[in-house]
């Protein structure tokens, strides 16, 4: 019964979405306040209906209602509750329902908190947002209905893909979707502004928080996915340049470009049409990402849901929204006259460089990702584009970005003096070069890229600190300046923290890829051996350890320091999930500030030993630590006073100042 109500609510939400697309748009065109104002209750209704529908599906998973095809295919009574819930979005249909749930939530947020928007703009934003929702409701209802019943329900389900039964991956999709879908707000604002034919500083101030929020979610989502791959896939890789990973990286890069260019719109009223274009492209890449993941058109390790027919539907959605928005852009963007003037050397130019590097790297990733498809269509060749290409093609952009960032970030708006900035940055530069040389000298014969990358990461972190320190001004003594540090706007802190986070991630990546130590051998129980500065001893192996829904082969390994003192007892496992018929490994990891010791259990050997792999991974956790710090920087910026005021105060002013919308 609840299932039918959920299905019905979904159909109703689809109807409301169509209504909300048409009526406010017509109302805004005619200046009819009544027609415009239906957008808000409609957005709320749409969200509540979708939430009810999602709740109904969750209920079916929680109660293991195997009369639902989806529950049977992706759940099992023995599965822990956390994974019963995460199983809702661990499959194609459910994850799309989560997608629209978040889409309608953002739409509703724009309705609830958008009271300071001019009514015409708000009506149009909500209408555009709703049109995207309508397309996806149609997609779900016509091709991927989660509420399909089985005529003969089985006694038990087929279990969720065991790889997805993991806390890191349970929350990876929701965060990623919050990011993908968050960019739909930037898209809706861009299209609404194109329809209105007006972009001003206020527009920049409305768009930036949405983009920033989406970027923060994407950052966390990508970080969780990378962390999961690190400990779950069994050899400690953190990024594979898999098409599905690239699908999330592209919107992230474009969103990073967008949140920087929106600053220029907000503060200087320049880069307007470029920012609009980025906002359109950012969501376009989100849709491309959804297409890549959902269609399975590009072979990848994320094999859990793909169907070419659905791919065609998403491609149509993509074509409609991107085509429509870009045509609108071509027609209207010329009319958006830029106001801000700046000299060649200025913060504006620095941000143009930032946008150039981020946008070009996005397109390089894009071309590399679809290249196998392109060559297959246009020639007889089947080629692969793998990590060696991406590492080679993207590293120069990362290095250029890292090199330019501290300088560009300190240039003054409008007209800057390079000399002054460089003098302030001398301490950071000296430190960076010294650390790079030290790494190069200490590890002769290893990669030369790692010392450069480590130097750049020091440059980024020290540069962020210098930036923050110079913001406190010159007046007063040390104490006065430290006092002022705390009173700096949150946006300044967000900038410094975010940029430092980038440096920390870069450091982790450079250290891990450059200086990891690997050991592969047959370990005999009771015979310790050395790996790097550590002593490893396989104590024993327990077979047939019973888990809630799996059987495990668990090794007990002692990790000792140079002096023979025990550091940790690790338990690398091999698990078998009998229902899904799939084995997985659980690495045994001793995490630390400066290194992870990573153990993976292999197969038993005829001589009674076990294949055992040991890695010493220097500064591995800094990769995800930096990711969290980046996200934290975004959050700090998001809570800056100017957005809080824009959201809460000044309700009537913009409306009064503008009167009725143009047209």
């Amino acid at each position, binding site marked *: 019964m609840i299932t039918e109500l959920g299905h019905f609510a979904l159909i109703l939400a689809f109807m409301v979405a169509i209504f909300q697309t048409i009526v406010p748009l017509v109302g805004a065109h005619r200046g009819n306040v009544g027609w415009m104002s239906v957008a808000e209750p409609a957005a709320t209704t749409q969200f509540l209906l979708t939430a009810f529908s999602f709740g109904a599906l969750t209920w079916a998973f929680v109660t293991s209602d195997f009369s639902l095809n989806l529950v049977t295919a992706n759940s099992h009574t023995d599965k822990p509750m956390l994974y019963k819930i995460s199983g809702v979005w661990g499959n194609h249909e459910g994850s799309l329902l989560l997608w629209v749930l978040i889409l309608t939530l953002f739409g509703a947020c724009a309705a609830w908190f958008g009271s300071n928007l001019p009514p015409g703009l708000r009506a149009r934003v909500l209408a555009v947002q709703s049109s995207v929702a309508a397309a996806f409701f149609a997609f779900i209802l016509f091709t991927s209905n989660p509420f399909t019943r089985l005529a003969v329900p089985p006694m038990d389900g087929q279990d969720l893909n*065991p790889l997805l039964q993991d806390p890191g991956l349970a929350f990876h999709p929701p965060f990623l979707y919050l990011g993908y879908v968050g960019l739909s707000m930037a898209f809706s604002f861009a299209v609404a502004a194109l329809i209105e034919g007006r972009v001003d500083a206020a527009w920049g101030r409305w768009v930036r928080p949405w983009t920033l929020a989406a970027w923060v979610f994407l950052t966390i989502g990508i970080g969780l996915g990378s962390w999961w791959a690190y400990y779950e896939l*069994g050899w400690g890789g953190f990024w594979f340049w898999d098409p599905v990973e690239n699908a999330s990286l592209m919107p992230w890069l474009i969103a990073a470009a967008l949140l920087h260019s929106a600053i220029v719109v907000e503060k200087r009223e320049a880069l307007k049409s470029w920012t609009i274009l980025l906002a359109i492209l950012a969501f376009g890449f989100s849709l491309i990402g959804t297409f890549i993941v959902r269609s399975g058109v590009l072979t990848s390790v994320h094999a859990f849901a793909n169907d070419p027919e659905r791919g065609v539907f998403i491609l149509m959605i993509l074509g409609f929204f991107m085509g429509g928005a870009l045509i609108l852009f071509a027609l209207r963007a010329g009319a958006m006259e830029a106001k801000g003037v700046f000299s060649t050397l200025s913060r504006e130019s620095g941000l143009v460089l930032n946008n150039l590097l981020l946008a070009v790297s996005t397109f390089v990733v894009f071309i590399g990702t679809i*290249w196998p498809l392109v060559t297959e269509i*246009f020639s007889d*060749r*089947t080629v692969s584009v793998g990590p060696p290409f991406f590492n080679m093609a993207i590293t120069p952009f990362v290095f250029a970005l890292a090199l330019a960032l501290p300088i560009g970030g300190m240039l003054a708006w409008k007209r800057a003096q390079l000399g002054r900035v460089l003098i302030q940055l001398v301490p950071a530069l000296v430190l960076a070069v010294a650390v790079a040389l030290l790494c190069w000298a200490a590890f002769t014969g290893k990669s030369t890229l790692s010392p450069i990358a480590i130097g750049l990461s020091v440059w980024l972190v020290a540069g962020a600190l210098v930036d923050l320190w110079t913001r406190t001004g010159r007046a007063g003594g040390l104490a006065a300046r430290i006092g002022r540090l705390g009173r700096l706007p949150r946006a300044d802190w967000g900038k410094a923290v975010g940029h430092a986070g980038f440096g920390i991630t870069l450091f982790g990546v450079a250290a891990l890829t450059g200086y990891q130590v690997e050991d592969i051998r047959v370990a005999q129980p009771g015979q310790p051996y050395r790996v790097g500065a550590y002593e490893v001893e396989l104590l024993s192996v327990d077979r047939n350890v019973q888990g809630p829904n799996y059987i495990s082969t668990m090794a007990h390994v002692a990790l000792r320091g140079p002096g023979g003192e025990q550091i940790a007892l690790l338990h690398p496992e091999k698990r078998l999930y009998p229902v899904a018929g799939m084995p997985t490994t659980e690495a045994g990891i001793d995490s630390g500030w400066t290194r992870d010791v990573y153990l993976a259990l292999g197969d038993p050997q005829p001589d009674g030993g076990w294949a055992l792999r040991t890695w010493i991974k220097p500064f591995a956790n800094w990769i995800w630590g930096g990711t969290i710090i980046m996200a934290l920087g975004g959050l700090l910026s998001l809570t800056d006073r100017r957005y809080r005021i824009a959201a809460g105060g000044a309700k009537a002013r913009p409306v009064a100042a503008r009167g009725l919308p143009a047209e």
Partner: protein
Amino acid sequence: MSGARARLRRLGLAGLAAVAMALAIPAGAVQPDEVLPDPALEERARAISGGLRCIVCRNESIDESNAELARDLRLLVRERLVAGDSDAEVMSYVVDRYGEFVLLRPTLSGANILLWAAPLLLIGLGGALSVVYIRRRALAPTEAALSPDEEARLKVLLKE
């Protein structure tokens, strides 16, 4: 080339089934019994394996993969190295048998040149556009410029 395609098509179904297995039994990859006694040779073998795709897996190199076929390829690579082949000779030996598809790093030939040139072309094009944009902004009349009326008023005010 068409041989590789046909092989891929044949592997298609089996490949999909193997994906789950191959992916799921990680911690496989290089087995202790595969490791060559000569560390320098082993290091070369690892580097070569890292650039060869496991063709029954999804986007994994044979160095990372646990599939049976990946193991065969790893052993083949080591066999060729022990036989005294150079890195390039090993690569072409494998490509001759399995097709260009196994190369994770696409060759610099034919249409692939476009792929490799893409970063340079894009940064060149984007850079040129950015320079034009910045210069136009720098040359544009400043927003602070006064209208003739204002100039006149300013003069009057200054005289006073």
